[in-house]
């Protein structure tokens, strides 16, 4: 291969002899659109379900316990406090998820951003959601674990947490440990590694 100004020549000559891609028909386009819409919906709903499934379990547990032990003031207060604590968190989570998955191009009249602004926007939205999620995890996980331990011990262990503080503490630590380890794995897959990739692209753009 000659090396004078050959990159452009190689590209042009090679492309000139390549077969052109087949044109897209209306039918092809509609098939692509419907498959993408399904995929997008699936991705968002998968994440929403993964994010709130723990809370759904918690709400079911609290509701079941509340109905079953209606009249037991201590139990009722515990269940209601748990619900009152978690409802604002669930609402905030759903709002943030909606912001995370709203694409800027969907806003009417908005122009398509250049690569730098697109990557910067993606990074900002993901980092913002991750920041919110970390705060929510640090508050929500210990509190929900504490509620579960308190209710379980009050219902099933004679003397409750008051007479079995060490067992209660161990159960609490185990529950928090399991939650944090699964949250950490999930964060790495969905946030830490994608944020690192976006950061690399942004660094590359800024360091030119």
């Amino acid at each position, binding site marked *: 291969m000659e090396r004078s100004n050959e990159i452009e020549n*190689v590209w042009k000559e090679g492309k000139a002899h390549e077969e052109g891609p087949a044109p897209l028909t209306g039918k092809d386009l509609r098939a692509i659109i419907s498959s993408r819409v399904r995929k997008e919906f699936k991705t968002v709903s998968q994440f929403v379900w993964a994010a709130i499934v723990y809370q759904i379990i918690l709400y079911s547990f609290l509701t079941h316990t509340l109905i079953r032990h209606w009249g037991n003031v201590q139990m009722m207060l515990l269940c209601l406090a748990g619900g009152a604590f978690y409802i604002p968190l669930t609402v905030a989570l759903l709002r943030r998820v909606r912001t995370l998955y709203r694409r800027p191009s969907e806003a009417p009249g908005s122009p398509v951003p250049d690569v730098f602004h697109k990557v910067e926007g993606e990074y900002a939205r993901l980092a913002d959601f991750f920041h919110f999620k970390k705060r929510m995890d640090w508050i929500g996980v210990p509190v929900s674990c504490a509620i579960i331990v308190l209710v379980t011990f009050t219902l099933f262990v004679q003397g409750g947490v008051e007479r079995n503080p060490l067992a209660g503490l161990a159960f609490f630590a185990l529950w928090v440990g399991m939650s944090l380890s699964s949250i950490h794995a999930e964060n790495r897959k969905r946030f830490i590694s994608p944020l690192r990739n976006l950061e690399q692209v942004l660094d590359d753009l800024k360091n030119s």
Partner: protein
Amino acid sequence: MHAEPETSFLANLNQNIRIVHGVCHAYFPRDAVEREDVFQDIMYQLWKSYPQFKWESKFSTWMYKVALNTAITHIRRSTRTPRNEELTEPTAHGPDINERMSREEELHLLHEAIATLTDIDKAIILLHLEDQNYDEIASITGLTRTNVSVRLVRIKQALKEYLQGNQ
């Protein structure tokens, strides 16, 4: 999208469809499944953004923006393990086999060289090879015109070194 905008969208799209294939090939040269996936993703984003396109820039410039934005963000969303297929070996047909083989081999090698670049450098060289001028490259990538020209020199140098080392 109604029938008339869809017809005009398809007509413009088909005139420039090589852009989408070029972007897919530059970013996913070794995985046909991923390439098809990002192709569909780009088509979907183009279709969604088309009603907002005001013809203030060339259709091809707008298409490059959408295609590159989608391809670059697709990389971070992808959960597939790259299959690292070998790039398709060139095949030769027709009477001028030797000449054609050589041209296809060279293009094949150039694709391999481009695959080694960073995401942004891939975009810059692809736009340059597809005859976009510095101002258009700057407007698509968000870099300044000077940055584009400086980076192009570096990218071409890197490509030449790769080609020399792999000939």
